[in-house]
Structures are given as structure tokens and as C-alpha cells.
């Protein structure tokens, strides 16, 4: 059972109260972008065994979107953070580096 603490209402919500929103921090490429960028935005997703950054929505709760960093292998949750950001907060990254030395996720390491 996955327990994520919603950064907006502070509830340690279990999986059934949440809805998964896929990979975090995607850059959207629209109509005027190159084929390669658009293809990558549309189809190319990370599928790591280990550290992963995801979007989740507290759907049966405050209704807010937020971000979560967790390990897909051990289900350890490193932390959750606001949706109003394009990259994970520095202190959270520090914590992950300490627990998973040498981890790499896209261009975050």
C-alpha cells in the first residue's frame, strides 16, 4: 500500500484516495515544435527500477495535483512536493542522493 502525504492538505492519503498522473516534469511541446520533440513529449517515458518522479492527484480529498518522489522497486516514498514547480526541490534531491547514491533520472542525478 502506497501512502503519500498530500502537500496541500497534509493528509497521509493511501492509494485509493489518489489518482496517478504519470511522469513528472514533462515539457510540453505543441504544434510548432519539431517532430522529434513532439514525439518525445507524447511517447517517451521513463520507466525506472528505482528513483522515480511522478504526478499524483488527491482526487478523493482536496482535489489538488502534486508531485511525489519514490522508489518503484522498494515503494519507499522520498517525499511529496507542490505541483507549482518544474523541478524537484533541492532538499529532497539531497535526501534522495544520500539514500540512493549515484541515482539518475533523465538529467537529474
Amino acid at each position, binding site marked *: 500500500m502506497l501512502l503519500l502525504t498530500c502537500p*496541500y*492538505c*497534509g*493528509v497521509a*492519503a*493511501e492509494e*485509493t*484516495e489518489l489518482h496517478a498522473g504519470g511522469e513528472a516534469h514533462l515539457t510540453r511541446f505543441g504544434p510548432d515544435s519539431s517532430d522529434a520533440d513532439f514525439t518525445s513529449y507524447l511517447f517517451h517515458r521513463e520507466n525506472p527500477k528505482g528513483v522515480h518522479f511522478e504526478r499524483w492527484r488527491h482526487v*478523493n*480529498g*482536496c*482535489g*489538488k495535483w502534486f508531485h511525489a518522489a519514490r522508489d518503484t522497486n522498494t515503494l519507499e516514498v522520498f517525499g511529496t512536493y507542490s505541483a507549482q514547480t518544474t523541478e524537484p526541490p533541492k532538499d529532497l534531491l539531497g535526501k534522495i542522493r544520500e539514500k540512493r547514491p549515484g541515482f539518475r533520472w533523465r538529467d537529474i542525478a
Partner: protein
Amino acid sequence: MSDVALALGGASFDGLVRIEELSGQGMITLRGDLTDKSIVKAVKDVFGVTLPGTRETIFDGANGALWMSPDEALLLCPYTQAQAKADELAAKLAEARALVVNVSDARAVFRLKGALLREVIAKLAPVDMSPEAFTPGMVRRTRMAQVAAAFWMDDTSTARVVCFRSVAAYMFGILSNAADGASAVNHFAR
């Protein structure tokens, strides 16, 4: 004024707790910055309560305010005053970035009364209902079985549950089932 048509006609059930569909509950949704001073003041003027902090409730008699999300509150008042209060608040907030809607007829409200109400709720919602974790003065938006719901405790033996009117019959069914007289677990009494 026409009579209030309740979703279930005021259905009730007696088991581990008494479950009763409430009539006369006015509900107004307010969306906006809950820390904005002009919004807080307008709510205070119309409802006589300040806006609650995260996951809290504030009551003054029949009026109250429930925290629903960082930018949403559910304001409570008697049903007969709901539309007038919603209009008054909307007029006061005409210049503010806020939305006010009377949702009294879009929701169903159940009152749970009895010592075992924590247990009845805990059977249905993924919420820690132990007396240390959930107390009167808190509100929780969550799901109950398969539908969205919000509940709060007025005192240690009374709770109110709000759900969409369209799922009122389902909610009454699952609540009654969880409160079946032969299904006591007595978990929180231990």
C-alpha cells in the same frame, strides 16, 4: 416557499448508530483564497464565522465553515437562508477573485449519532478514526466505499456526512450496512 424534496425523503436507520438523512441543511461552496482578508471579512459578515485552517471546522450555532481545500470552503447555514446568504456573499465578493454557489440541493447530508460512529466511518473510509487522530473540529474529505464524501464530528457521538445527492441512496445503503446491529467490532473501545 416550496417544500424541500430530500433525496431519500428523510430516511433513517437504527443500528450501531442512528443514521438520519438531514433536512434543512444549507450548503454554500466558496472558492477563492481563504486567507484573503476581504474574503474572510465577507464570510464573517454574512455567516458570523471566520474561515477555518487546514482541515478544520468552525461553527457558530447553525452556521459554520468547513475547510475543503486550500482554495475551497463549504459554508453551512439553515436551508431556508442558503440562497439569500449565497446572494449576499456573492454581492460582497463581486470584486474579489471568488466564486459562491448554493449547493444545498446538490448534496445529501446524513447525521450519525451513537457511541460507535467512529467504527461505522472507519469501515467505509481510508481514514484513521482513532480518538487521537480524528477529533471534533476536524473535517475530512475522502471516499466512503466507492463515492466521494466529506464528514466531520459535531461532538464525540455525532457526525455529519455529506455526499453528492445523486449517490444518496448508495451512501445510505453502505452506512446502514456498516451500522448493522450484528456487526460491532468495538475496535476503538479497546
